[in-house]
């Protein structure tokens, strides 16, 4: 099973999530900002990224874009304290796979991660202009 990358600025939540995932037998790494996250993603070792929407400096949506530039095939689950429809739509448009609000149900979180990891992603097809 591939490694999971957690990106959240809240130190306690990084701890909680790592505990939760490791308890479920998953391999994961938690980072606190966008730059660290990007350097990790470019290593090409991660099968999933859990990304907080609100981050210091580079916000979640910007980071999502950068991650997708590095590896479009990597699935991203967004984590948010807002829970409003607008930011959900923005994130899905930006290529996020799914979305979960804080506080969350532990079991629901684990279910979502597992089902995401099983997914196979297909690259977009280049459209040939008509003559």
């Amino acid at each position, binding site marked *: *099973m591939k490694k999971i990358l957690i990106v959240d600025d*809240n130190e*306690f*939540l990084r701890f*909680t*999530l790592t*505990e*939760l995932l490791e*308890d479920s037998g998953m391999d994961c790494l938690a980072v606190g900002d966008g730059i660290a996250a990007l350097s990790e993603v470019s290593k*090409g070792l991660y099968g999933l990224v859990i990304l907080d929407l*609100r981050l210091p400096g580079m916000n979640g949506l910007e980071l999502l874009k950068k991650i997708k530039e590095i590896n479009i095939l990597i699935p991203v689950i967004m984590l948010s*304290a*807002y*829970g*409003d*429809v607008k930011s959900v739509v923005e994130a899905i448009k930006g290529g996020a796979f799914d979305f979960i*609000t*804080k*506080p*969350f*149900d*532990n*079991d629901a979180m684990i279910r979502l991660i597992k089902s995401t990891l099983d997914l196979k992603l297909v*690259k977009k*097809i*280049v459209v*040939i*202009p008509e*003559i």
Partner: protein
Amino acid sequence: MTSQSKNKFTERFIRLDRNLPLEKFIPVAFLVFLLCIIILTIITFRNIDQHKTDLEKIDHSNKVLAQLEIVNYRLIEIPFNKRGYTITGDKTHLLKFDSLVIKVKADIEKLKSLTSDNPSQHNLVFSLDTLLSENISVLNNAISDTSVYDINTGKFSQNQTDAIKFISANLTEINEITDNLSLNEHSLLKNRIEEAAHINSVTQLFIIFAGIFSFTVIGLSLFISSNLIKNKNESENLLKKSYGELENRVSERTSDLKETNEKLQFESLVRIKAEHTIRESEQRFREMADSSSVLVWITDKDKQFTYFNKASLDFTGRTLEMESGKGWTEGIHPDDLNEYKKVFKNSFDKKIPFEIEYRLRSINEEYLWLLDKGIPRYKGSEFAGYTGSCIDINERKKNERFLKIQYDISKTLAESDSIKEASGNLLKNICRDIGWDFGIFWFADEKNEYIKPDYFWSEDEEDINLFSELYNDSMKFSKGMGFTGTIFKEGKSMWTKDVSTDTSFLKIEGLSKKGWNSGLGIPISNGKETIAIIECFNKKNIEEKQDLIDVLESAGRQIGIFIERKKAEEKLKILYLEMEEKVKERTAELAQALSKLIQEGEQKEIVQNKLKLFSHAVKSIKDSVFITDLENNTIFVNEAFELTYGYYLNEISGKEIPLFSDKNISPVLRTYINEKTMKSGWRGEMTTYKKDGTSFPSYLSTSYIRDENGKVNSLVGICQDITEIKNVEEELRKTNEILIETQNELIYNEKLAALGRFSSGVAHEIRNPLANISSLSQLIAKTVLDEKNKRRLNYIISNVEIANKIIKNLLNFATPESLEFSNVNLSDMLNGVLDGVEARCKSSNIKIEREIPEDMALLNLDKLKLENVFMNFIANSIESMNSGGTLKVKVIEDKYKNEVSINIADTGIGIPEGNLDKILEPFFTTKDDGVGLGMGLSYQTIKLHKGKFNIKSAVGTGTEINVKLPIKNRTE
């Protein structure tokens, strides 16, 4: 003009034809035309060819792109298959991997061939090929390495990891190259499409040009050739025609010459004959003329008289030699000579006939009147002079003179107003007409005893002076005294040829001294006796002419009658003047009386006009005007009043004015207005009623009217319809209300926005720790715990949920979620809510009253949200009635206003007035466990439904909430 221009045109064509014969022109034109067609066709073909190659190029680019896509796809699939084999050891993966490798290689080969014409693309494909080969070799090596994957640890060996890293690096590069390839190909493709489109349009343009050009050339050559043929034919015809004309003319001229020759011979014969005849006829004419009694004369063409007949010479007693030339004109009376010369010369110059009367001296020295007629004479066509004849018209002339005398006298008498005026003119006219030089008018005195000179006339002023001396005022003749006295006495005319020999002339010395010879006296009689005499004198000795005397005597009688009549008229005139004087006096008296009357009349009219003006003004005023007596009985109402109220003057005259008599007017108001009016007038607004019972607001202004003695005798009122003013006021009031409402809403929205910004910040900060608490609690809950700790943990978890819910509500309040509409039965919904609280009410001793209609139309609403709203209101009501009460829910469907009104009333503790404004504000609550968001959220939901919210409350009485929801427009 047209034919001329046509000729010019023809000439031009003939010239053209001469320079460039038609037979040569047509083949040349066709050759040029064919050449043009061939050139255009070649260009067109070339363009089409170019277009074709362009299309092929485009197709080629498309193929390259498609090929690239396939390669791209396979490149991704290769490592997957390889990894599949590595992990599972399933050979099918390996087979697939191998076939993919072969396919990719083939594809690359195809790409190579496709891009062979483009060196840069070709190089890119080569580098792609190299990278791919490297990848495949690495992958093959990895396959042969069997100790790569440790199933136990689930990890790859270092070798494998390195290989994967290498491949992924290579893949990135490959991706870049393919991207470059497709980009290049796209730009190529774009250029080619543009080029193709450009060539396509150029080709079309060429084809159109070629078409237009060929048609123009064909048309032009056809036109020119047809014209050339036509003109050639025309000019041939013209030539033929002019040749024929020339031949005709030559033959005509020959015959003309012949004819002229014959004519000339004939004419010379005729002329000889005519001369002979003329000579003969002249002789005969002279013989004839000499035997005529009429005076005949002939002139030559130089105005010289050449012939007078015998009668003429006998008349003047002169010889032909004396008369010839212009000798005879010596005999013309000097007075007529100039006129004759003028007429003769004018006529002669113009060669027209003339007629003139003149006096010619006869053989016995007497001038006799002749009528001379002359006509131009021609010899052949040549003017030869005049021939003329004269007739004796003496008798006629004399008669004319007498007639003139008669006429002049009659005219003078008719034109004269008095005897004095008439006598002067008469004397002058008579003397002139008979051609005598001097005249005296004698008048008899009133008693007819004497006759006195009254008036003298002469052409010569000196003569008058002389006679005035001779016949001064003291001079008078009695009857029978001298020449005049004899006429006075006898009443007969007298004529004397020579006064000097007439002894009856008393003043003979004076008269003869001045050379007077002939004298003539004509009596003027009134029928009984002579009352006046006219005397004329002439310096010549003139024989008595009885006919002249007859004429003058008859004129004398006429004058006599005139004088008598005038005398009578004068008497009458005096009488008339007297009468007139009297009439004038009376007229003046009358005029004075009349002017007095007129003055009085004018004053009256001014007053009447003023009255008219006032009455018109009152009539045309658009406001209702009425006049009553002191008891409010109608005297007058204007047209506006009649039209406005429907009461007509003739039906209400004398009755109480309907404005006050209407049953709707209170007697108190009527009395009040009347009292005020009598004091100083009243003005104010009141409702007035029309005959048909309808009413409208009006502004009434009343006042009393004083008569000329200052006594109040009537009342006047002006009533203005102020419905429109009222409407405007009402509209203003409403607008103001809406404005205030909008303002409140704006303030509320502003507050809400601030709250939104604040709460979304807070929410994030709180939710992070909440998530930690929640997650960790859940983790602990999974471990083995005793019951006590399990319960504690569950409390933690549920409290986190409560906190989260508060945050959620807060967020919702600040940034409300959009509504989800569905068709909802409002009555079912409200009944459901009430059913849910029924048990609770029973226990709290609360009675529920429902007034909810069953068959309500479906409304388009967000069911869940509105249910929460009503639930919230009803729960608040129940809580306010701790010690029991009544909850009343009433629903009214107002189809006219297009809205549903929901009323929820309780008999609870009520809300203090100071709190009523704050209940909608977030976090305002009076409950111990309330958050203070419920009312605010409910209000917001109602607003989102475009509804209205209203709350009334009083402490101790209860609270009433009213919600109005629109029936339509809910889908927006």
